[in-house]
């Protein structure tokens, strides 16, 4: 007796930004089995980095692995190469890089929140968050010259300086944004229909988070305290007001809340950065060719981003290995899908904030 329906979700689907294909085995609309396929976006970036590009270009190539966390990709790569070359950036460069990463985190989290709301059928909330998000986009465009692919970081520094007008703009927009965030937090907490759609839905338990090695906001929403910003000392996060946001329930609501609170935290960090910006050069000459092997971990908006770079003393690198946070998020996601309703699937998917182009490279 066949009682199950197969429901496809993807590779093209209106609730998806990127191609990923799920095949749900459902009883009525209750999901009992999932089959996932993530390889639609594979372009072969890793190989190309060691064949067709010189190591100085690779920073801009790996940024194209993913548009949402482009800045963290180029930062990780740059840091790795700088370590190979024995270069340590000055504080101003560090602060500027951090500023961009945190701004990127804000816009990425807001996009995720908006997308989750849209996929839960709440169009007005989507519009509201997208409207507020433009405040960050404006700042990013003003600082880097581009809205999405910033190409801000280069080996030995950053490409543009932060002028005092820009500092004013950052302050102004972030103040407005933090007011909006309070409204949003209240909305996410109190809306009756959102609580039906979010609370207790798509629960990733702490054990599952351990088992499947979940990273980033979704691990923190399950109560797993993991954040590279607290674990490494490449950047002075603790000094600039970083706190780790933890939730315990692990449902969509918790993930949203981790993101909401991280946005608030990132706003605070950004303000601290522009308030305490040290003086110094923004671009320094770095000489030599990378030789040896180096590992770098950076907290991208979706969790730990891992880079391995190996050079052999020539202009072309020997190996670039990228491991992205979504890669380990997908098995966890498949586990969460089982037992939930198909009607929730798009919202759960969006709340995991998967980045397929990161995963498939």
């Amino acid at each position, binding site marked *: *007796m*066949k009682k*199950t*329906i*197969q429901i*496809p*979700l993807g*590779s*093209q689907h209106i609730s998806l930004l990127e191609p990923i294909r799920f*095949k749900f085995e459902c009883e009525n609309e209750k999901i009992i089995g999932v089959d996932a396929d993530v390889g639609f976006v594979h372009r072969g970036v890793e190989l190309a980095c060691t064949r067709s590009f010189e190591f100085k270009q690779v920073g801009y190539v790996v940024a194209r692995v993913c548009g949402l966390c482009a800045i963290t990709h180029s930062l990780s790569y740059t840091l790795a190469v700088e370590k190979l070359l024995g270069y340590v950036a000055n504080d101003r460069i560090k602060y500027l890089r951090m500023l961009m990463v945190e701004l990127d985190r804000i816009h990425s989290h807001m996009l995720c929140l908006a997308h989750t709301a849209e996929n839960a059928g709440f169009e007005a909330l989507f519009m509201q968050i997208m409207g507020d998000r433009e405040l960050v986009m404006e700042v990013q465009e003003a600082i880097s010259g581009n809205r999405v692919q910033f190409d801000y970081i280069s080996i030995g520094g950053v490409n543009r300086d932060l002028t005092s007008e820009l500092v004013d703009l950052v302050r102004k927009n972030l103040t407005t944004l933090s007011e909006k965030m309070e409204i949003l937090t209240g909305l996410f907490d109190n809306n009756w229909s959102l609580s039906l759609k979010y609370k207790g839905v798509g629960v990733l338990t702490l054990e599952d988070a351990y088992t499947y090695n979940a990273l980033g906001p979704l691990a923190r929403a399950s109560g797993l305290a993991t954040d590279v910003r607290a674990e490494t000392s490449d950047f002075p996060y603790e000094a600039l007001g970083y706190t780790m946001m933890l939730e315990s329930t692990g449902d969509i609501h918790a993930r949203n809340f981790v993101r909401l609170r991280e946005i608030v935290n990132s706003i605070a960090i950004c303000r601290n950065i522009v308030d305490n910006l040290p003086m110094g050069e923004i671009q320094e000459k770095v000489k030599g060719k990378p030789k040896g092997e180096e590992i770098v971990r950076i907290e991208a908006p979706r969790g730990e981003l891992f880079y391995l770079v190996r050079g052999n003393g020539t202009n072309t690198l020997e190996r670039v290995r990228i491991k992205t946070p979504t890669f380990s998020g997908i098995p966890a996601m498949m586990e969460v899908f089982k037992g939930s309703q198909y009607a929730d699937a798009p919202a759960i998917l969006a709340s995991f904030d998967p980045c397929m182009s990161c995963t498939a490279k």
Partner: protein
Amino acid sequence: MLTLILLPIIASVFTLLLPFKRVHYFITASVLVTLTLVAFSFYSSTEIVTFHLSHSMSFLIVAADVILLLYFLYQGIKFRSANVIFLSAVQLLLYGYVESIAPTGGPAEIVVDNLSKFMFLIINGVGGIIVLYSVRYMRDEPVSATKKSLFIAGLLLFLSIMNLIVCANSILLFFLLFEMTTLASYLLISFRNDTLSRANGLKALWMNQIGGVVILLGALVAIEGYGTVMFDTLLKSSGGMVLFTVALLAMSALVKGAALPFEGWLLGAMVAPTPVSAMLHSATMVKIAPYLILKLAPVLGATLLGSLLSVTGALVFVAASYLALSRFVFKEILGYSTVALLGLMMALAAIGTKESMTLAMVLMLFHALSKALLFLAAGVLEKQYHVKNIEEMKGLVHRAPKTVGFILFGFISLTLPPFGLFMGKLLAITSISSLLRERPALLIVVLSLVIGSALLVLLYFKVSSALLSAPSDILPTQKEHLPYGFSIPLILLAFYSIATAAGFIIIQGDLFIAWLALPLLLVILLPSMVQKMERYDRIQPYHCGEKELFDAALVYYEPSIRVRQIIYGGFGMLFVAVAFIGVLS
């Protein structure tokens, strides 16, 4: 009158004597034509016919009753069924006592009134067609030729039993015939003689025997209170005990009508060959239930008992429709929907106003036609395509367009205007609404009517969806070969449905109702327009850009065990409450 009863008996003898060949078609067809004509002539005449039974006949009846009960007892012992043994013994004792105190003489034992004439129409019109159909159906059944003949002869005999039961005026005669229908269902359900059939047959036996017991109890009370066993005398008298008798008889109707919690026997009956399901368990035999309530309705109207009965019936309508959604076997789905609609008919009959009784009769007629059609079509699917399960029926419209067409027609006639079931429900809402001010309890009936109808629509279209779901590209549909033995009964039934629907509209004389038939025109026009669509290009369905085809299954709702317990417990209590209220009033 005699024709109706004797002709099937004679025909059955002929069927047994003559070998299983074309001659059976001839016999059954001629029986069908004669019976239908006679029933019609009865229906058009207005006189009320009565018969007195002679003394020897009465003796025969007693003897038949005792033999029958002893046979049940024997079957109970043979298959070690405690329920059957116990109930048979109780019945034997009760029957002996009742017969000993039963008064003799009095009014006629057989009265053919308007209600009986109406029932004749259903029994002979629909039943005859089913017998005709069963000739072709049995040809493919893997049993011996004698058994095939026996089967048809049995069905024919059953017709005459039914013809007699609807004009029985004596409760005791009614009891005998009631038990004979029980016997018929027992024998026909266990016809295939495997373990499952046997078990279901015994289940049907003991459940129906509960009905027998309450009838005897009713007779007992009637004799004690009024010294009569005749329906008409009883219904004319007044006073405390009448309602108790009526309550007991109504309980037997609930059992026969497979109202919850007794729906088990009717569903078990679906293992029997399809003509049996069609004949006994949807078209004719179970109609005894609403018939009995209709007979009792003059007393019931506006009493607490009447309200309780109609509420029970209405709740059965909802609950059975709901339970049906969890089923997969096509015939079981039909069975559940029969249970549901019988509940509705009883509810309407028990309200007891003239209008609601008419509506109950309308529902009976149209339900018999539609359900018979559906069951026969289900039989065709079973024999020709070997599908029983609705999951196997996906896209069957391509393989069997004709049969599927008949099934869809059946569903349409059960749900849409201008067919009788729809009109019946529609008018019922109007007529019950006008009673609401006096009897607020009927609000439950209105509600159940609406919710139940909605659930039934859900059910039917769940099945239709399986039949219709076709892939995008239309290969030329295959020509379906439907043997005449199957197609003629189906066409006859469809024709009857349309004709009666048209007749009903004309009788109503309401222009609006005629307008309601207009959407149907659209449905009829659609197939002819299909040809014109050739010029449009075809595409594949959208599957998110993927190329593989995904297969959808049907929705189903599995009530949890707890919900089931609540439903059965509730209906058990309602069943007991009927007797209780009867005693109180």
